[in-house]
């Protein structure tokens, strides 16, 4: 592929009136208070690069990679400029044309494309936790010797991690509970397979509970979002082709996922193949079937639990669910059906600063954004925080720990599953 073809066109930035509406919406501007870290500036930087006034210096590259892809700017622009999209396109171009650190191909072409490797990589952490090493380290306060970033990474992982990856503990075909009403595919994200196995196990139970037979292919591979985010477009397309072919063989009503990021990426497959005559139809068909689990449950009418969990719960909107997929009512409706008290927190729809790997690449900004967010969680007074994205779940879990907040983080559907178990009297259940 000719790298020039990856560059944004004049049409994409020319109409920016520089009004500034996007600036205050941008989480990176909010914490740095520097124009350079704002969508308006990113549009201008891309423009100046294309006009030959800027070179791909390390600082330029860093500004382009500092975008969290939270899409707040895209949503608010009165003219329809998409600063977040411009940043992603620039990354694809920079990735192709600039020398990359040796670790990048290793991570994106090897690690993220082989689910077994991802699973294996979790093993040391599982052992670390289960063999008491973590407790030992903490009791000696040895973790305080680590630099802040590593210390936070160490605390990022939930404890305990599941012993086995989810795909190893479930069959490929999971029968419906009771009468079979639908047949759906389940796209198991990498995080849910290894770190939040409990969450996806709950999603699958809830789907089965609502009359779905579930096809969960074992050899599903990463949705490709990390690759898009880093500009590794070729590998993204390869992964997409693999996943499309995998689900194509089965007769499925929908392809359900409980990861906001996977969902938004899968829904975009069609877009990325639109100029490919061989794949465009298949990709389009695939994308049309993709549903976030909360979207699917509301669309098909889920069974309401007879009793609600006696919890006060608030909800954080994952950017890739609310903005990329337009889902904000659905998870709330699920929560309202599952828990006794649902409270909105201020700024529920602002990014938590996770954005995949910002903790590695832009640690300070990521943590500053998180701190703002956690204060809002705290102010809501909720004991449980629900969110539908594993990246957010990790980040928010870390934020709670750092602030010493006793707030547990769950996927909304996990709470629905818990409410089903909590409801002993089945006769009182009603349909929504």
């Amino acid at each position: 592929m000719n790298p020039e073809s990856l560059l944004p066109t004049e049409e994409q930035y020319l109409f920016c009136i520089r009004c500034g509406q996007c600036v205050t919406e941008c989480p990176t501007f909010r914490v740095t208070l520097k124009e350079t870290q704002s969508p308006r500036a990113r549009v201008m930087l891309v423009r100046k690069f294309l006009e030959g006034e800027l070179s791909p210096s390390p600082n330029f590259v860093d500004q382009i990679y500092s975008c969290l892809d939270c899409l707040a700017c895209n949503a608010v622009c009165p003219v329809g400029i998409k600063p977040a999209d411009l940043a992603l396109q620039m990354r694809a171009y920079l990735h192709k044309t600039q020398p990359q650190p040796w670790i990048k191909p290793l991570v994106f072409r090897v690690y993220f494309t082989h689910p077994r490797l991802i699973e294996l990589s979790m093993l040391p952490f599982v052992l670390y936790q289960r063999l008491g090493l973590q407790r030992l380290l903490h009791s000696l306060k040895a973790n305080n010797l680590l630099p802040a970033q590593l210390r936070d990474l160490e605390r990022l992982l939930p404890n305990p991690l599941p012993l086995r990856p989810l795909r190893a503990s479930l069959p490929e075909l999971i029968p419906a509970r009771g009468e079979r009403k639908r047949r759906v595919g389940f796209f198991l994200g990498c995080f849910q397979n290894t770190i939040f196995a409990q969450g996806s196990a709950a999603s699958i139970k809830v789907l089965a509970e609502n009359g779905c037979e579930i096809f969960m292919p074992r050899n599903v591979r990463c949705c490709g979002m990390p690759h898009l985010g880093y500009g590794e477009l070729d590998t993204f397309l390869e992964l997409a082709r693999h996943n499309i072919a995998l689900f194509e063989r089965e007769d499925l009503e929908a392809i359900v996922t409980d990861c906001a990021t996977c969902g938004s990426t899968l829904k975009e497959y069609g877009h990325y193949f639109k100029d490919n005559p061989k794949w465009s139809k298949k990709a389009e068909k695939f994308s049309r079937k993709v549903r976030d689990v909360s979207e699917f449950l509301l669309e098909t009418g889920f069974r309401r639990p007879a009793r609600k969990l006696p919890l006060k719960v608030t909800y954080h909107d994952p950017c890739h669910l609310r903005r990329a997929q337009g889902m904000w009512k659905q998870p709330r409706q699920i929560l309202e059906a599952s828990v006794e008290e649902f409270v909105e927190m201020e700024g529920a729809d602002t990014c938590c600063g996770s954005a995949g790997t910002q903790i590695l690449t832009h640690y300070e900004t990521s943590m500053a954004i998180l701190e703002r967010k956690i204060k809002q969680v705290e102010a809501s007074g909720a004991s449980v925080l629900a969110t539908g994205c594993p990246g957010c779940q990790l980040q928010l879990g870390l934020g709670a720990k750092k602030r010493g907040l006793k707030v547990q983080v769950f996927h909304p559907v996990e709470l629905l599953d818990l409410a089903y178990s909590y409801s002993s009297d089945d006769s009182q259940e009603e349909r929504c």
Partner: protein
Amino acid sequence: MLAPQIIRELKKIVGEKNVLTSPEDLIAYSYDATFLEHRPDAVVLPGSTEEVSEVMKVAYREGLPVIPRGMGSGLAGGSIPFSGGVVLALTRMNRILEIDEENMTAWVEAGIITAEFQAEVEKRGLFYPPDPSSHKYSTIGGNVACNAGGPRCLKYGVTGDYVLGMKVVLADGRILKTGGKVIKNVTGYNLSHLFIGTEGTLGVITEVLLKLISKPRYVSTAFAVFPNLEDAGRAVHRILLAGITPASIELMDQTTIGTVEEYLHLGLPTWAEAILILEADGNQEEAVLREIEAIARICRENGAVEVKVARDEAERNSLWKARRSVSPSLARRAPNKLGEDITVPRSRIPEAVRRIREISQKYGLPVVVFGHAGDGNLHPNILFDKRRPEDMEKVEKIAGEIFKMAVEMGGVLSGEHGVGILKQPYLEMAVGPVAVEIMKAIKQALDPKGILNPGKVVPLGVSWRGE
């Protein structure tokens, strides 16, 4: 390029991270919401009035231009560093220092976003009325420096009407504190008002003391369609004559209606010469409803063929939607726009709109007119393409003719955006030679080295085409 020694000095004052010099940073601080741009030599982000003072001392010693900047949402090129130098961006100074509920005042740092300050006082049942359309992405300091207005100004007045005092850092670094927490204050010259609307040319406004009022509890909105522009003008007059002061009366002319409709397909009457959006507010629901009914009746009696009154918040929003969509729909018609800001005596609005239309036809570039009919503040927006040299020439001629027209009608160059650099060449025509002389004398007294925002407001040999 600044000498490394000066950069080091600045870094010592505000901290390493808060002095920016990379090309990316300089580009990010080279523009505002106009089509103009020019890079500074450095960007400094101070954290306190004291830091601003120290920075100014260095700049004064070195004769270095300093351009104060808030969020860069200005529409007159006022914060663009055309002579290079240091952009002093006040965005980090965004704290509310005090909200005094009993005296209904607030002390804030200049860099706070206006809408965020408003939300904070509204939580306490208080109200800060000035509402520039940019309130979600402009700062109080910028609003004060430009004396920003907004739709609500008809009833509540502009930013300057709410300033009780401020802290200003002068060109040589001295800190001046003006005004106080009192409504009446005639202790000497009104120095607070000296700095309002000076766009950073006389001093750097770092903190502001604002007057608050109680928040009106009820709002009601109406939408009126007029086949004839003069009828709309008369309706506005009759409403005010009847003793009603709506919070806002917004006007969209036929070109605006057409442009918005083309963009959004809201079903707007493209055949109408004018649409008015009118809003009443107050603390008594019945009174507000009576007012909006009277407004609707007067519109009908004066030639409106359709009048809608919103029944709830959702309907209210949909009535405002057309007005809010003006800017985006303009941007889709041409890559560049020049949003002008003349104010004419209210009675001459219909005449002004017709004359602007004639000017537009004469040069063959679209000019869309909308604005605040209640206070005579019109926004003719010239649409063009900067890449076409012939367009640029026409834009300047059109703007010149519009300004001339406004002044002939007894109006002014700007109602709320300020003079900046774009309108500076027309200043003398608008205010007369004596006023310009006095402005220059004040500038000379407060900024003898001419380092504060050079070339803005007062003509001093700097233009956006180069010195």
